[in-house]
């Protein structure tokens, strides 16, 4: 079991929610105070490094034109962390490759970070939530097709070492691709893909990349992982899916007492409750299949939308979206979800949101790392790694830090 500290770098100092129609895309950026924003960036970087010191790995992501995640260029933050951290694995989850138009540039960025960090990169790729469509001016139709073509191109760019190759696909065209640097990890860094739908997970399973799912609770997570398992088998692989292929992102807050823990967990709910977005921005045409849109027009509701109406720490724990409480309680809640969904090898900890202040964030990180993490590692040992890249220098050492001139 590996645990990753994930922070969205939110900017929570907003006017009352009833004064704006959407926290994403249309909220004017005059609301953002760069002075406060600078302090937040430095604070969030500190928290990642505190998590690393406590033994956790590091995860970050990217969103655009939103107060919920002021990290619109995650590779920049990743580059800072590659230099500032020394031992944590660095997971970017991820690069929105359906919305970024230069997959080769992304291959270059990731290769740079892999080399600077001496092989600590875990390269994640996401299709992107629907609210990313307008900021990217990205066509919401055929995103999956673009996603897979972009990822195939990136892998080819990482793994081609004998000079330029050309690419003439449906969406991307290059006459000469020959990236410098090539990645530290050979043939390429571990690849992650996130999706919260079973059909999406099937496609990830076919390719055997690490599958992450976010806040999908008991039922949704089981369906996603089952979709992955079907794809994994469809591709002709024998045996069960190794747990290091599966990751679950939950809101996690551990503290010495239940009272402290619930107070912190309450603030983490901001992550879900503050996400005010009108339907036309949340569901552009073509983002979900026609059949799913039909079901919505007939009244079907996204599970998170239902939860949001009566959000509480108890309900979040009950749904499997959150692990919160004393270390004993968190471990017990974790076990329930783990057993129900059939196991997973990575816990992506959404451990900071909204107004969870620095001291409380650190308390949550440290309590988890000290009191919960060792138990999880013991109870859910890693499977044999299904993908072991080699270091480019042949030493097999990945976690090296820059040691000065």
């Amino acid at each position: 079991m590996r645990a990753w500290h994930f922070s969205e770098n939110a900017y929570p100092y907003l006017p009352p929610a009833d004064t704006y129609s959407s926290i994403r895309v249309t909220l004017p950026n005059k609301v953002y105070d760069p002075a406060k924003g600078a302090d937040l960036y430095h604070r969030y970087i500190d928290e990642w490094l505190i998590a690393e010191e406590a033994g956790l790995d590091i995860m970050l992501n990217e969103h655009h034109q939103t107060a919920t995640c002021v990290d619109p260029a995650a590779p920049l933050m990743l580059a800072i962390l590659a230099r500032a951290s020394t031992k944590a694995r660095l997971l970017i989850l991820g690069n929105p490759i359906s919305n970024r138009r230069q997959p080769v540039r992304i291959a270059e960025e990731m290769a740079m970070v892999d080399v600077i960090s001496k092989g600590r990169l875990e390269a994640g790729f996401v299709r992107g939530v629907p609210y990313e469509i307008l900021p990217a001016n990205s066509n919401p139709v055929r995103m999956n097709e673009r996603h897979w073509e972009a990822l195939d191109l990136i892998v080819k760019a990482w793994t081609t070492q004998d000079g330029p190759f050309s690419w003439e696909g449906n969406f991307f065209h290059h006459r000469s691709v020959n990236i410098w640097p090539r990645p530290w990890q050979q043939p390429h860094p571990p690849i992650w893909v996130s999706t919260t739908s079973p059909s999406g997970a099937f496609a990830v399973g076919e390719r055997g990349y690490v599958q992450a799912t976010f806040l999908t609770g008991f039922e949704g997570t089981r369906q996603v992982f089952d979709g992955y398992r079907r794809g994994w088998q469809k591709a002709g692989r024998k045996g069960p899916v190794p747990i290091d292929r599966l990751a679950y992102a939950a809101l996690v807050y551990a503290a010495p007492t239940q009272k402290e823990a619930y107070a912190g967990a309450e603030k983490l709910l901001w992550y879900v409750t503050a996400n005010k977005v009108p339907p036309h921005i949340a569901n552009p045409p073509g983002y979900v299949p026609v059949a799913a849109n039909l079901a919505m027009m007939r009244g079907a509701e996204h599970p998170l939308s239902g939860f949001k109406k009566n959000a509480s720490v108890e309900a979040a724990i009950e749904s499997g979206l959150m692990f919160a409480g004393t270390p004993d309680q968190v471990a017990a809640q974790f076990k329930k979800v783990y057993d129900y969904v059939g196991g997973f090898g990575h816990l992506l900890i959404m451990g900071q949101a909204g107004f969870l202040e620095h001291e409380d964030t650190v308390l949550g990180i440290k309590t988890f790392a000290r009191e919960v993490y060792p138990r999880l590692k013991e109870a859910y040992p890693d499977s044999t790694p299904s993908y072991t890249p080699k270091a480019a220098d042949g030493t097999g050492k990945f976690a090296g830090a820059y040691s000065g001139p």
Partner: protein
Amino acid sequence: MKTSVIKLAGVDVEVFEAGSGNPLLWLHGANGFAPAHPFVKPFAERRRLVVPSHPGFGKSDLPLWIDRPDDIAVMYLELLDRLGIAKTEIVGCSLGGWIAAEMASMAPERFAKIVLVAPAGVKVGPGDKLDIPDIWALPQEEVNKLVFHDPAKMAVDPANLSDEQLTIMLRNRETTALLTWEPWMHNPKLKHRLHRVKAPTLFVRGVSDGLMSAAYVDAYAKLVPGARTATIAAAGHAPQLEQPAAFAATVLPFLDG
């Protein structure tokens, strides 16, 4: 009256035909076509009306290689060949008007008369302001107000549609997004090709159209040699649906004249 499936460039396209006489190719807008649309009767009484459902609309297929209106324009020139129509009148509404304008710029000699109803397809205003409002960035109620003169009467209530009708409606929306997303609602090349159009051309606009402004339609018409414009009262973006009698009374004399 019949609906058949014709394979064009390997794509199965649903084609509705009604009436007899001189051919009239009718290209529907973003909302698609249904044989019950009120313009069918007055036009089929006077013409051989041919209405294809664009690829990705109705039950027509949508292959991966199609992603722009001019892809469809080329297919429809082939449709005319297949139907043995050397020269035709054409009416194109909104997205269909864009396809019709592309066709007329590609093969001016194939058209006897051209009617463009609130057509998309060109960019005439400044670069930092959309010519046509972004319908995907607005709530549906606001879009309805832009599209219809009388939204209370005209807007579709999904509750009244069958699953099959809703599925087609949702697929039509998706294909519209695919075709019009970027550049938004226009082909930057088209305005440099429209001077080739030879046939008498009429632009029609509903007076309450909130999508295609009068300034936009007027500027578009100036790109087509000799084009005229007409306005339909008490109608929005789809005067052929909202005021079918007034629409026919404006368009049929132009076609006959």
